[in-house]
């Protein structure tokens, strides 16, 4: 029955777009390698700025809901990102926040530790290689002798896609493991029943430890924390049990524990497990609980080993966290 339906079904209309992203997500789409042929067979790419020359105007001309599936990667950092997010939401049936940045803000979201002013000042004024005596900053609108030039407005805060428009699904990862994308894509193509709106797809419900092959025990008692280079990793014992902070326990599986396979602790790009009210607090709680001293001063000493808690527990999710940004 499903097959029959498939035969008669028109090809899926698909779009891929990036907001404030690095392009890695788009590469991950290209990296479907052979599966690319299945994708092309099943879908018409109606909008993909890397590869196609469909114009913004063309997208605007589409009727609402014309696009069946949009993979939106990247965070929302400026007026252009926001505009496109809203436009694509309007034109798309199933909008997927694709990758860590769209999911929870990602690495660009670390900019919420600072402000537009501080960033401009650093990049355009105080940067050691910059010569800018007149303190010229880029302007959204600027009159050159020949006419007016425009560039998008740079916002003070980074937001995740879901904080700007209504998102149907989240497909996490920095970048998402290509196999996960193909699975989700095929599920949609085959018209399989999709999980409830707002769900995370293409990632496991269980966190990294389930897949991690390192030796684990209940010996999660930590007398001091180490930076990765401060220990000689034996290559086989749970990082936490070696005193190195690993986001694995609080990070969804699905990536194939790729960082850990590279002997690096999990960095958390796949985001928190279902229903986590805050992406970092649970791990913070777990880590603190592991501290194996009771004297306040000794506890403080151990805590001081954690040099950058906010940047560690919210590495990919600062905008998506309860506090969202640094108060200034």
């Amino acid at each position, binding site marked *: 029955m499903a097959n029959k339906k498939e035969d008669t079904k028109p090809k899926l209309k698909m779009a891929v777009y990036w907001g404030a992203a690095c392009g*890695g997500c788009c590469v991950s789409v290209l990296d479907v390698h052979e599966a690319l042929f299945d994708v092309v067979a099943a879908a018409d790419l109606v909008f993909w700025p890397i590869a196609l020359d469909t114009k913004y105007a063309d997208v605007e001309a589409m009727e609402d809901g014309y696009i069946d599936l949009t993979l939106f990667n990247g965070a929302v950092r400026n007026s252009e990102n926001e505009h496109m997010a809203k436009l694509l939401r309007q034109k798309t049936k199933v909008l997927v926040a694709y990758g860590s940045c769209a999911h929870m803000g990602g690495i660009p979201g670390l900019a919420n530790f600072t402000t537009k002013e501080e960033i401009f000042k650093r990049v355009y004024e105080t940067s050691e*290689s910059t010569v800018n005596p007149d303190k010229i900053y880029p302007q959204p609108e600027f009159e050159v002798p020949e006419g007016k030039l425009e560039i998008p407005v740079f916002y003070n805060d980074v937001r995740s896609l879901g904080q700007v428009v209504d998102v149907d699904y989240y497909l996490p990862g920095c970048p998402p493991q290509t196999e996960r994308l193909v699975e989700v894509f095929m599920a949609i193509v085959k018209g399989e029943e999709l999980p409830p709106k707002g769900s995370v797809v293409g990632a496991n419900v269980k966190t990294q430890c389930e897949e991690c092959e390192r030796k684990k025990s209940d010996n999660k008692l930590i007398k001091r924390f180490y930076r990765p280079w401060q220990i000689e990793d034996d290559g086989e014992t749970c990082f936490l049990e070696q005193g190195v902070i690993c986001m694995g326990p609080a990070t969804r599986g699905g990536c194939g524990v790729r960082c850990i396979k590279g002997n690096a602790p999990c960095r958390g790009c796949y985001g928190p497990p279902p229903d986590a009210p805050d992406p970092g607090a649970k791990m913070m709680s777990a880590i603190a609980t592991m501290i194996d001293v009771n004297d306040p001063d000794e506890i403080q000493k151990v805590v001081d080993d954690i040099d950058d808690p906010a940047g560690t527990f919210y590495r990919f999710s600062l905008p998506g966290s309860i506090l969202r940004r640094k108060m200034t």
Partner: protein
Amino acid sequence: MKRYTIDPITRLEGHGKIEIFCNDDGDVDNVYFQVPELRGFEKFCEGRPVEELSQIVTKICGVCPGCHHMASGKAADAVFGVEPPPTAKKIRELFYMAHFVHSHIAHFYALAAPDFVVGPTAPKAERNVLGVIAKVGKEIGTEVIKQRRIAQEIQALLGGHQTHVVLNTPGGVRKGLTEEERKDIEEKAKGFVEFSKFSLKIFNDVVLQNKEYVDIILNGPYSLSLYSMGLVDDNNKVNFYDGKVRVVDQEGSEHCKYAPNEYRDWVAERVEPWSYLKFPFLKQVGWKGFVDGKDSGVYHATPLSRLNASDGMATPAAQEEFEKMYETLGGKPVHATLAMHWARLIELLYSAEHCLELAQDPEITGTDLQAKLDKTPKEGVGIVEAQRGTLTHHYWTDEKGLVTKANIIVGTTNNNAAICMSLKKAAQGLIKKGVTVDDGILNMVEMAFRAYDPCFSCATHSLPGAMPMMVNFRDLDGNILRTVKRN
């Protein structure tokens, strides 16, 4: 005054926008290339542990993450005042060569070849990678995909990810190489060498044997007389991972040769209010505006500039091709923008050869992967050659190794001014009164742009690619009279 908006990806979608202003005679008056993106890594890296940065900065660019990973890793080494042990250094280089092979293959076949193999003015429908495959045969097309994938697999094997690698740690690497893995990579590297030679043969047969193409390459609109920048080893041979930065002038004589920590003596960046991307220039020469020539500090950092700035290639086969190119194009240095494609293939061959050398080096399977970190971290600069230009990372830290300041000059940024000028020159040469601006013309303009393989993931963050183009013919009030679109 007429105003043409060549909007590679229109502003609201866009990641790079070209404004062409013509005078009333219809001749090009001025051209602006605008970059609408900024993310501020230099600021928000502050406060992070320095070893974190080699993972964080790969997110500057998902197209050449390996380059940022390497530059950052080297900066971190410098911050701790250590050199990785030989094995670690070689593993890094091995990874990096694979990264170059993967990137250069992609660029030549997917982006450059269509213009030459198929033809710059050939019908749009054929002027793409499929057209290339049609011309050179399907099995080659499959080979292209295969080689690119193999190169990525090597990166994934060494770096965990194939994109955002986790290989480097201050003073070393996280993972060694087993003998089996080495053997496997050795075989793959042999394949790279063969494939690179084959690619050069295609270039030779299809491009160099075709007078029309050679003309295009040497033809005016596509040449600029700029300073050339590139990383070289102790013998002034091209090196991507290590060495000093050498800059030669328009005649090929050395302007400077600086160690990474000296970059600020030679390079400065300028800010324009109409673009988020800064404009680097040679500090000692100074900024004279968007003009070429010896008095202008504008330089380029590309495969061609790297070859211009060097005395040759460090591997035999690549050296041969190096000599052949300069012979064919009338001696060093070459200023023909389109020669960058040739230079890129020579670099591909070098990467492949060096990849093989490293895979055959007995030291590559050593177990000493990490230098001892006993000095107090302070400050360090790391410089590598990214596919798209010299990449500089500079970090300052407190005594715990937490970053207090960071400064980054990414590959494509070096070429920001040069790209503006190439576009202006191409536009001036091609868009004239009476000339119908059609798809062919636009592609010819775009070719100037594409030659730089501009990775605006790094700089603006659009990916290198066949860029959609559109020209609006507007009246004085800016109303669109006619629109020409590619395809």
